[in-house]
């Protein structure tokens, strides 16, 4: 019996996915647009391959993705900290400040070395 909530959560998640797809299909407007036929690749044209750089992706994409993951992970830790900040006391505060500082170091590095310049 103790696994019933997990089963319920599974059903709920599956139901939400099915509901979202179905409701979009039923109620959404259908206006044709050529761009909708193409594969989606972070807003750049997937084909033809860019000539510059021999068909490779601009490296700035990877930098942005890395930065995103960095701050995503930071949030993953900040939420539980915020909930238990009382119980963790000063020790927890110092630890989380150190954690944010290390992430900030990485950010400062990317910023100073021109990782955020788009041109």
């Amino acid at each position, binding site marked *: 019996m103790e696994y019933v909530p997990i089963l319920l959560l599974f059903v709920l998640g599956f139901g939400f996915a099915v509901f979202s797809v179905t409701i979009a299909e039923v109620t959404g407007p259908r206006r044709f647009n050529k761009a909708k036929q193409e594969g989606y690749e972070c807003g750049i044209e997937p084909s033809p391959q860019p000539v510059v750089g021999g068909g490779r992706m601009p490296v700035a994409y990877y930098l942005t993705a890395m930065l995103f993951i960095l701050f995503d992970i930071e949030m993953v830790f900040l939420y539980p900290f915020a909930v238990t900040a009382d*119980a963790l006391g000063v020790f927890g505060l110092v630890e989380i400040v150190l954690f944010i500082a290390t992430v900030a170091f990485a950010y400062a590095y990317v910023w100073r070395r021109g990782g955020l310049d788009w041109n």
Partner: protein
Amino acid sequence: MTTPASLPDIDYAGVAPVLIILGAACIGVLLEAFVPRSQRWAVQVVLSLLAIVVAAIALGAYLYTGPQNTSTFAGSIALDRPALFLWGTLLALGLGSILLIADRVVEPGGAFVAQAGIRPGTMLDKEQANRSSMQTEVFPLALFSLAGMMIFCSANDLLSMFVALEVLSLPLYLMCGLARRRRLLSQEAAVKYFLLGAFASAFFLYGVALLYGYANSVKLADIANAAGGTNRSDALLFLGMGLLLIGLLFKGSVGPFHTWTPDVYQGAPTPMTAFMGACTKVAAFGAILRVLMVAFGSTHWEWQTIMWVVAGISMLLGAILGITQTDVKRMIAYSSVAHAGFLLVGVLALDGSGIRATLFYLISYGFTTIAAFGVVSLVRDGTGESTSLSSWAGLGKRSPLLAGIFTFLLLALAGIPLTSGFVSKFVVFAAGMSAGITPLVVLGLIASTIAAFFYLRVIVLMYFSEPAADGPTVTLPGMYTTAAITLGTLVTLLLGVYPSFMLDWAGTGGFVV
């Protein structure tokens, strides 16, 4: 208002060496961001060397004043004698590696690339090979890796060990791809190491998951306790152990999990090969020793035969394949596979004398390796290092001092008396004999004899063949490489002539449970 959580007790004095190295690495990243390009190299070298020295002082102070055989971070980090000995070893070998990395005289600008993002083979790439700058991120990366290694060999639970494994591995993957010359080979090495390393990490994690299922804990001591009970599934325990060990043996380049070693050793920048050959070996075998003795010591009757076979395969593979090599870096790589087998003999003794022998072997092998790669980086021709064995012919006539030092180091690797290699092989095999694994020791002696052939072949080549007319030249080393080679050679000699003090240090205690 919630009740205060119970916080782990942290022995800051005990973990100070690791914190200092990690802190210096973080400062190094900031320096990369804010110091002008022209001053970065000098600032990073000073910071890295200073951090290692201060960490060593902190370690020494803790050894004399701190409590013995404790653990901290709620039992996750062991501060027992083997862990502290390995920290000292890693700091000393790290110092030697940083010295090799810092050299800018042997290869003008340093052994590392000026700008790693440039495509190999293009005009820009040819131009940057002659530029006087280098990617100074190497220094903080090396420090991060070093700190990961220190945590790796003192981690007393499998999760900390896994995090440490990634902290030590990721910078290594990156640094392998940063050679200034032969960029494609270097990048190939980095990609191979990264992919195979990711597989090995996955094996490690699968093992941790199964062991957690078995023992309901990731702590090594709890796994040992659970194995003492009788009503659990042995399949879970031994499957988990096997997968875990594959991950660890991969890092230690023990055959048959060694396939990455020759390619990566050959492609990586030579200072980085020295760092991997010395420090990664220490970290991996520190962890193998701890895992086998603390977590699986009580069940060793069940698994030790398989590990004997692994050790035997590693010795023979390394020794036999080493004979066929024509590249000096690949030859030393296969020799390191053979040495991994010998080290495993000491580990599999599974007692105090085994710990002592393995720790001694690690420190003496590490110093010999660093000096040997230092010498390799000096023999050069127009395209960079000349690592093909045929071009080493007649080196004894051209540069007697360098050939003499390399001969001494090769004799140490072969295990000839009056070098540290002899003493370390002796103590390892003695520990194996007294633990009753005589067949493995005999196999080890045979493998040593086979391996001695290819070391001696290089010596013969250097002294008894005529130098080629257009052969490589020996570059005069700068201050840093000279210091690293001298340090490695002197320690190799010292531990060969007067090993007892180091053996005493290595034998001062066992693992904390």
